[in-house]
């Protein structure tokens, strides 16, 4: 409140980096670079997002090629190497059965990507469908659907996941479905808010004026414009789902032994923590690194694709 005449806020809205560049460099004339080029240029300027994306890509690589990259068979037991300290031959050490921890982590990547990934994917598909329909049709139907989703949202997600899994029994398919059920409401809300924003835009009205069908308007006019925020939301959901799947594994509601599940590894390592902390530490750190890098990437995506700040 020092400079009421020239507040920083009003100044920033008047002349900001992006707006300024746009003012000074009016489009038209020469074709401007394609949007993905712009995204890439912006991404390069954000080191945190770039690092996050690179780490994520490394994990993605491991998820696909893990079994071939891993130095040992993930379930090969070696009695001599029980609880071996990290060394050249076992960089992350070995567990109570002498299994190489690095290999178990590498091979376990695929599992967590598949469970979290498919869960997120289903959530995105169903959530988008609900959000589109509910937002465009509006009225009482919209109200009812949204309140139902609110009910789902009101439970703590881990608790809800445990209850659901305990009742249907742990299996890979069930984990995927539980992840999907948990994240549908969030995706639906994001899509719905986009639809509400877009459905009264002039280009949608122009489509109504030329007599387009509702499905055309939804899938050709509105959906393509909702993709950037949807992508950001999906990547955020994915980073949460990794954590969720790992938590479920730790609680014994996830993949059953001897699968190389990260959460399961932590659970099994609890008893040896004082003897051989690395058995617990490395899987835990891996989870942390993957979750952090994924959210760095999704934050980066948001800044790159929705500059000026998409709400939530």
């Amino acid at each position, binding site marked *: 409140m020092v400079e009421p*005449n020239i507040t920083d806020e009003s100044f920033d809205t*008047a*002349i900001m980096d992006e707006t*300024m560049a746009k003012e*000074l*460099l009016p*489009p038209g004339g020469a074709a401007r670079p394609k949007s993905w080029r712009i995204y890439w240029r912006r991404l390069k300027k954000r080191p945190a997002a770039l690092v996050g994306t690179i780490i994520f890509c490394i994990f993605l690589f491991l998820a696909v090629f893990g079994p071939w990259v891993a130095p040992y068979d993930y379930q090969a037991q070696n009695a001599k190497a029980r609880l071996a300290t990290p060394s050249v031959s076992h960089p992350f050490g070995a567990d109570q059965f002498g299994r190489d921890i690095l290999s178990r982590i590498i091979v376990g990547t695929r599992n967590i990507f598949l469970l979290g990934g498919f869960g997120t994917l289903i959530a995105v598909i169903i959530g988008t469908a609900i959000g589109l329909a509910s937002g465009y049709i509006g009225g009482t139907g919209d109200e009812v659907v949204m309140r139902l989703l609110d009910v789902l949202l009101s439970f703590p997600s881990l608790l809800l996941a445990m209850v659901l899994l305990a009742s249907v029994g742990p299996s890979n398919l069930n984990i995927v479905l539980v992840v999907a059920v948990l994240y549908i409401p969030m995706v639906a809300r994001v899509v719905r808010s986009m639809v509400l924003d877009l459905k009264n835009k002039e280009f949608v009205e122009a489509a109504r004026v030329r*007599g387009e069908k509702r499905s055309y308007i939804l899938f050709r006019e509105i959906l393509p414009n909702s993709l950037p925020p949807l992508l950001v939301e999906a990547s955020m959901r994915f980073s949460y789902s990794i954590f969720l799947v790992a938590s479920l594994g730790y609680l014994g509601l996830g993949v059953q032994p001897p699968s190389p599940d990260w959460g399961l590894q932590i659970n099994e390592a609890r008893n040896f923590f004082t003897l051989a902390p690395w058995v617990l530490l490395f899987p835990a750190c891996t989870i942390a690194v993957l979750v952090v890098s994924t959210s760095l990437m999704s934050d980066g995506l948001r800044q790159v694709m929705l500059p000026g700040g998409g709400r939530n």
Partner: protein
Amino acid sequence: MEATIPMQAPPGGAAKAPRPVFEIEGLHIDYTTELGVLHAVRDVSLMVNEHESFGLVGESGSGKSTLAMGSIRYLASNGKVTDGSVRLNGVELLGLPAKELRELWGSRIGVVYQSPLSALNPSIVIGKQLAEVARQHLGMDRSAASTRVIEMLTKVAMPDPEAVMKRYPHQLSGGMLQRCVIAMALMTDPSLLIMDEPTTALDVTTQAVVLDLVADLKREFDSAILYITHDLGVITKICDRVGVMYAGQFMEQAALYELFKRPLHPYTLDLLGCVPHFDPTPQKRSLVTIPGAIPRVDQLPPGCIFAPRCKFVEEACTTARPPLVEVAGAHLSACRRWEVVPPPAEYLRDATEAVRAAQTEAARPGVLVEGDDVQVHFKAPKGVIRAVDGMDLEVRIGETLGVVGESGSGKTTVARAIIGLTPSTGGTITLRGKRLPRSTGRRPRATLKEIQMVFQNPDASLNPTRSVGDAIMRPLSLLGGLDRQRAKERAKELLLAVSLPVSYFERLPHELSGGEKQRVAIARAFAAEPELILCDEPISSLDVSVQGSLMNLLMRLQVEKQTSYVFISHDLSAVQHLSDAIAVVYLGHVMEIGDATRVLTPPFHPYTEALLSAIPLADPDIKQKPIRLGGSVPSAMFVPSGCRFHPRCPRCLGEVCVEQEPPWREGEGDHRIYCHIPLEELARLQAETLVLADQGEGA
């Protein structure tokens, strides 16, 4: 009250030497962006004396805001003043330490922004925000500050200042808020007042009041005013000296009257020609266009920066950049060939052409669309909003009906009712005598095809994810039944028809400028081969030169295709330029309708009269009688009794107007006025409303 705007102040009438307050010399400002360093402002000099206002005009991207803000060193973090000198009362600002500069900003410099709502904190009452300034910078205590606030609010002609002080910003209208912001800026009696498009967001009638106020304050306060605007009409109302900016530098600088009467730079000449001339005759002339677009500041041509678009260019212009030099007394021009620049009247005659001859009364074409007692009422929690409340309109084949009125007059809503986007709730709308279903959903495609729309916001009217070609092809295949190949050919023809290169076919909307987007939107509307196109403020958000070329385009296409338009705008000069018939609407009702010529010559409805005297015309020779409307358009939820205009009407007769609905008074032809005052009486009262100088000229 009688605001004699001192634009007629003769040059050299030097009774006392004016004191320079704000001086800029050789200023350079750079921005560091993704694309490297941009020289946004280059070698700019200007001087403002006390009691004087300097108008900075230019199109978007010309660097006028950067210049104004950069000169007081208020730049975004990536901006930097690289060279030059700026003096305020003789004190050099550029070397000043940050602390002293901040002190200066608050106390000696006032700034008024375009949007008053975002300049004020919405959660603090007006009085407190204003008092804060007085306490902070004048060191006043609470009671002295509040006395000062009342004094300032009185000075800006605020009715009932004490009540206003207790209000929150959202409780005041735009004009009132802008007055508060001006009062706040003047609180410390600053030496320099920077006004950045302060009236652009306001309605014409409010704008006129604020402009009068600024003109008054200019004489009362010792401030120098730096006034930024893109509107040449506004400039004529309050500026003494004008600088025309183009791509970061001055093209011309002169006293107001000289700049308008005898511009000595081709760019200024073209700009003046882009603005519709106020001319209430039925003949339609094109406007001057400036080919090409303003160059990017990192891709300036080697010679004169205007050379690629200049009509007086010769070889030598493209090799060396001409400096801004004094070519006549205090008249600066950056043109080598300033001597060959013709007088505006002569240039206008040669550079424009008659698009369409005047239509004779007998040959008026038949009616295409007729609205009879159209109503659009919305249910709101606290009552009924009567957005359109019994409008009668007709659009003739191949003609343009201009609909003009302030915001809140229902002009957009009635257009949306015609096209069916907002279903009407009463009355009938017919197309060639056939009644139209109320909503788009109920209209068959064949009917939908006949009416298309060009929207106001070019950024939202094209789908950002689809190419230009796609956007134009869709109506061709959907409504025109063309196959893909033929639709593609036709779309390319349409691109050419709206003067865009075929290479734009694959482009996405973000690769187009605002004007280009609007051209695509026009092509898309024409693709359906409709009989009627509704243009809802299609040019309002664009630069003057782009506005001019779009108006030319609309006119040319109309003549070629015999399409009818409904042209909606708050800008009466654009409406008069394009329209054959004009409807003046207020609060959901037509006040006056008829042939454009008749609507624009007396007798007028008192509301039309007020609009005419409020529009800033870009011609300092036209004398407008200062008729100012108080207040703002009332809410459509509480429509006043009797004549709905009576609370603001300067010619209100009293009881009759309050109690009885006025009759339609029939004038010549189809001219009708909705007023209690007889036409003869109106004509007698209004003879002086608008006096066009040199009326016989060119005839």
